[in-house]
């Protein structure tokens, strides 16, 4: 596979090393002269100096081939957006991945259809929510392209589903239970699994079904 990675910071450089080790061809683009000089010894002809939002720089990095994948991981959200747009619209690249630095900018990526996106802040926040006891409903994973998400719900004594079997729940269409975690042990959710207070239930659901699922498991 041919991959172009825009942004030679910690994320970009390590990504380039990893995909190279997996046997893929990758070109890194870095615009800061000092950073480029340090990376050039290691990456040699696999790194280009320049602003990856400039069309001629992208051409130099082989965008016209076009690559199978363009990954935009600079520290600037506007740049990441524009790199992905130019790759797709101008060079016909089929697949892009963008890094979101400031989660408040996620809206722009969604509006312009740039997906999938990765935000370290959002991932860590979900982990923190997951660690908080009695956390209600937490987003564990969002599969934007598939329009699915995986959530975790923590049940307490007030939950309307406590004491019911899984096949007796009035789950909204477009949702399914995956597993039940009880006393530190997880098991797949079967029809005859009876839910108890303290259970952590994993569910996969279509976009927009969250409120309906919340009503099944949590006191309103």
């Amino acid at each position, binding site marked *: 596979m041919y991959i172009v990675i825009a942004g030679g910071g910690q994320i970009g450089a390590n990504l380039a090393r990893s995909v190279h080790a997996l046997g893929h061809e990758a070109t890194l683009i870095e615009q800061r002269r000092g950073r480029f000089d340090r990376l050039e010894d290691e990456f040699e002809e696999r790194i280009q100096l320049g602003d990856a939002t*400039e069309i001629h720089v992208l051409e130099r990095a082989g965008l016209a081939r076009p690559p199978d994948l363009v990954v935009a991981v600079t520290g600037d959200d*506007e*740049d990441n957006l*524009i790199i992905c747009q130019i790759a797709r619209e101008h060079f016909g690249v089929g697949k892009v991945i963008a890094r979101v630095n400031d989660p*408040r900018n996620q809206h*722009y990526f969604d509006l*312009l259809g740039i997906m999938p996106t990765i935000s370290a802040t959002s991932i860590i926040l979900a982990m923190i929510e997951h660690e908080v006891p009695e956390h209600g409903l937490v987003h564990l994973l969002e599969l934007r392209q598939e329009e699915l998400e995986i959530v975790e719900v923590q049940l307490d004594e007030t939950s309307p589903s406590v004491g019911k079997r899984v096949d007796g729940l009035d789950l909204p269409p477009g949702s399914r239970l995956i597993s039940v975690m009880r006393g530190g042990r997880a098991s797949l959710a079967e029809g005859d699994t009876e839910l108890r207070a303290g259970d952590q239930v994993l569910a996969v659901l279509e976009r927009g079904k969250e409120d309906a699922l919340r009503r099944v498991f949590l006191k309103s």
Partner: protein
Amino acid sequence: MKALVIGCGRVGSAVALELHRVGWEVTAVDENEAALSRLGDRWAGGFVVGHGMDLDVLGKAGIADADAVVVATDGDNTNLVIGQLAQKQFGIEATVVRVLDPARARLYSELGLWTISPTSTAITALTDAVQTFAEKAGAEA
């Protein structure tokens, strides 16, 4: 008619003043409060301090009922992103975006965004000036 001018530097402030002079209701947005001084002591339009990509700031500046938006911050990519927001989310047809890089200006205008590249304008004017001079010199020789 309401106009929003995002980025109140040399270009943005002059555009804001001129639009205001010819009767537009203008609100300027800039992340730097000192930019307000570019509009003069008697500025009667609106001014909101904040980053042009911040949706709260744009909301406060009244983007929801703006008839025209001029995007002229010092970042081409920031301008392209804000311009697309004004066009796609708020449906403001009269969205004009300043893009210094002629290549990006051309590409985004092909994609349906109204871009203005001062660099392209300068290139054309300078080339024309030299050509005109050469023709005149040639005619005189």
